[in-house]
């Protein structure tokens, strides 16, 4: 399945030594350099199409900094090439310069990323929540988001119900599994007792 080829990043790297090319071809850009890099990418390299702008909370992503990632998926309709820029911002109070002045398509995408991930896009003309109500608290796209029990006085759950925190599967270090299992299946009531305790 041939997707459009990814552009050769050499032209970018020679101009902006601060950029890092990831093994999968994504180019990591420092947030401060984004406006100049993006302008060059659009005007000189002819990437006129912002296909998608997406936020990723890298908190639990192995091999990545625990930051909020913003990905800019770009394409060139004339050169038939693709390019992906990646910016990482701190989880607390992170901000990225807007690219909506270059690609107006980013206006809505950046509002969504702000809404769901709490990324502030400096210079965005109308940075409001997009999908959620204006008075919503928190940014649900984040991995550590805790669901609120109520919204405007309306309870989300019936009495006694609660959102169960995500349980990480505990990796068994050694496997004494079989004898334990056998014991548990023989005497069912003691096996269920510890579950009810907490």
């Amino acid at each position, binding site marked *: *399945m041939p997707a459009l080829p990814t552009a050769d990043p050499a032209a970018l790297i020679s101009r902006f030594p601060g950029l890092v090319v990831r093994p999968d071809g994504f180019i990591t850009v420092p947030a401060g350099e984004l406006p100049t890099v993006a302008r060059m990418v659009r005007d000189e390299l002819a990437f006129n199409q912002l296909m*998608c702008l997406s936020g*990723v909370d890298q908190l*639990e992503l192995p091999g990545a900094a625990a930051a909020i990632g913003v990905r800019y998926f770009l394409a060139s309709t004339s050169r038939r090439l693709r390019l992906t820029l990646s910016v990482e911002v701190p989880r607390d109070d992170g901000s990225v310069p807007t690219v909506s002045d270059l690609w107006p*398509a980013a206006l809505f*995408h950046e509002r969504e990323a702000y809404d769901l991930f709490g990324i502030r896009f400096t210079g965005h003309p109308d940075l409001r929540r997009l999908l959620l109500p204006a008075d919503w608290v928190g940014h649900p796209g984040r991995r550590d988001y805790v669901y609120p029990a109520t919204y405007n006085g309306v309870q989300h759950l019936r009495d006694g119900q609660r959102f169960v925190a995500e349980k990480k599967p505990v990796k068994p270090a050694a496997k004494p599994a079989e004898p334990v299992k056998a014991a548990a299946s023989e005497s069912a009531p003691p096996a269920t007792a510890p579950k009810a305790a907490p």
Partner: protein
Amino acid sequence: MTIEAETLDGERMTLSMGPHHPSTHGVLRLIVETDGEVISRAVPDIGYLHRAIEKIGEKLEWAQFVPYTDRVDYVCAMNANLAFCVAAEQLMGSALAPVPRRGECIRVLVAELNRISSHLVAVGVSAMDLGAFTPFLHGLAQRETVNDIFERLCGQRLTYNYITIGGVAFDLHPTAVAEIGTFLDELSREMKRFSQLITVNPIFRDRCAKVATISAAEAIAWGLVGPNLRGSGVDFDLRRDEPYGIYGELDVQVPVGRNYAGRHGALGDSYDRFVVRLLEIQESIRLCRKALELLPPAAAKADDPVGGWQSDASKVLRKPPAGEIYVRTEAPRGEMGYHLVSDGSKMPYRIKIRTGSFAAVGMLEYLCPGLFMADIVTVIGSLDIVLPEVDR
């Protein structure tokens, strides 16, 4: 038909159009500021249909997410299925056996049939909003046949959950090829009448021509995709330019806008977008016929590399390698792109869905000023905005 808002005197009035309005095709709210009959500002307010599908996906296994993609765009659920499955297959890479040849042909068949029914709804409903009731009924009559075929194929009429990671869920039912062939013949006859009801209708033409004209550069910059992009004269179709599945072999012809309203219109106006959709139906009929020609005879086993309909199911449930990918496919409303992030576990780390209508809604605020109040209906209809895929 634009009038300089500044030349008119009078008080400005703020109207809330929607979220429940028959012509907004879902729950879209537009806060419209008007100066008499002329719009001075229109701010879209979305999110009424937000179901957090992307977030739900983070708690599901890869294959379990497919039914949710139906709900991303229920007007073209097959294409929504296909978009996710193609993206997930590319992420899994060599871990997954390739989709069998027959499975690929079935995918093209159902995707193009669904594109036909989606375009029939898009054009028919918009024509009804603009006062022409008859085309809507003709369109829905044809769509009904597509729904019948899909119902026999997978048991569902709207949300199919048919295309799976690795192929399709079931083989074609025994009478499917004959049914689809008969339908395509009938549809190509019917399309002549349907097209005439719309394109030769002077009222419809006058309400669409020169309304919300979008230049090619604007369309690209604002991220418009699919028929909206091609309506502005941009010759770009992912089925031809970034082919997936067997689309590369099908020689997809791409209709583009070229001021079909003649002296009444302009390149990239609402009328061009409607005509492009009608021409795309013709093209989809051709692609369906071609897929039927290429369809290999059925094999007894699902994972037969030629005649099967799904690659080995045990491999389908495998965990994809850690990685990040953006894959886009051509849905009826244009590029449906999936940004998938995998941390190597059995569940997606992040799913982001980029849809055609999202870009179109984003452009409304830019398009509407200067238009008449009644033109909003034309603009929303011609951009084919479907709200579930905007809010997700």
